[in-house]
């Protein structure tokens, strides 16, 4: 009750009770006086006038609305998360935990994903597919043995026209076009994540610099 007595927050009854107790209790009286001393010291602390006006300027608020540090509070942890993700992808790529590119039906690995262009057939009207010409067509050596890597150039050299599904299998080729792509495009993911991380860091740095200049 002493603190409330000190701040004059007691009702009449409680106040009278504390007063009568203080008349007989030296310990409580000393406690009260010492607390009154501390409070009196604090009451003498002056209110210092603000050194300048903190009025909001038009320019400042406009800038704040674009790069609002409060709104961008999520950016720092998000940058950390994306950076960690990038590092994980880089590590996976480095260790080659996940397969790259396309795996052939017999276990061979295509070094480049074949590209198909639709070629309409004149009579049947069926949709046909053809390998497109690569940018550079180096001379192709003999076909590799079954079970080794098969390149797009090989297919071009053989000049096969395949139907979307069946023809490929009918040719008895070593690799099936409709085999699902089991590898992850790690390179593209790495590049995308790197760009995102770079952008986030740039925004963070810019926001931090702007915030400093606004508070001056």
């Amino acid at each position: 009750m002493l603190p409330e007595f000190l701040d004059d927050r007691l009702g009449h009854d409680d106040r009278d009770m504390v007063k009568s107790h203080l008349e007989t209790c030296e310990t409580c009286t000393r406690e009260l006086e010492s607390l009154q001393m501390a409070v009196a010291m604090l009451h003498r602390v002056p209110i210092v006038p603000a050194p300048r006006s903190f009025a909001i300027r038009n320019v400042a608020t406009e800038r704040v609305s674009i790069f609002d540090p409060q709104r961008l509070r999520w950016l720092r942890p998000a940058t950390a998360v994306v950076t960690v993700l990038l590092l994980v992808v880089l590590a996976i790529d480095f260790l080659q935990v996940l397969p790259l590119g396309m795996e052939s039906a017999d276990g061979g690995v295509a070094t480049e994903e074949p590209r198909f262009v639709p070629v309409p057939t004149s009579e049947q009207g069926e949709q046909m597919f053809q390998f497109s010409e690569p940018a550079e067509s180096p001379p192709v050596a003999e076909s590799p043995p079954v079970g080794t890597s098969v390149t797009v150039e090989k297919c071009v050299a053989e000049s096969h026209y395949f139907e979307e599904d069946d023809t490929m299998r009918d040719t008895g080729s070593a690799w099936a076009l409709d085999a699902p792509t089991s590898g992850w495009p790690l390179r593209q993911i790495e590049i995308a994540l790197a760009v995102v991380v770079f952008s986030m860091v740039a925004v963070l740095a810019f926001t931090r610099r702007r915030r400093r200049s606004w508070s001056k």
Partner: protein
Amino acid sequence: MQEHELIKRSQDGDIEAFNQLVEHYQNQVYNIALRMLGSPETAEDATQDTFLSAYRAIGKFKGGSFKAWILRIAANACYDKMRAARRTHATSLDMILEESPEFPLNDNEESPEDYALRQELGRLLTDGLARLPEDQRLAVILCDIQGLSYEEISQVTRSSLGTVKSRLNRGRTRLRDILLQHQELLPPKFRHNR
């Protein structure tokens, strides 16, 4: 113009109206920041942050005590500054003791000796406040320096009345103990109190 009208106009995007509110509260906000943080420069930053945050968030103000609302933002800005200081391995106490502002105590009738004692006492109070835990320091500053009621402090700190009383009592007791360790600096009537 009434405060509620200024708030309404501020919510409609009127910067001039908001700046009138700033003018009205900036001394109080600055002084709370100064006593919480100790450093005038950091207090200026915290004050600026307070009003920028308030301007951005004024649309969310749903009524009640605007003073409590703005002081709550100020208190949060101070906590942010103290956290930032801790991240740079500097405690708020270090910050205060390194950049201790002039801390005069109001006293019109004093001798040169008393003036020197007053300066020392000011430093002692600064030191004592800095040694309080942050929540107790805020309660003591709001109540005994800014003169807020328990209810207002409860709104500012978003804590119960019981918590406010407890923090205030513990803060005052701790500060009292610090002051009593330097009785030679206290005014004569407060010496030999224990």
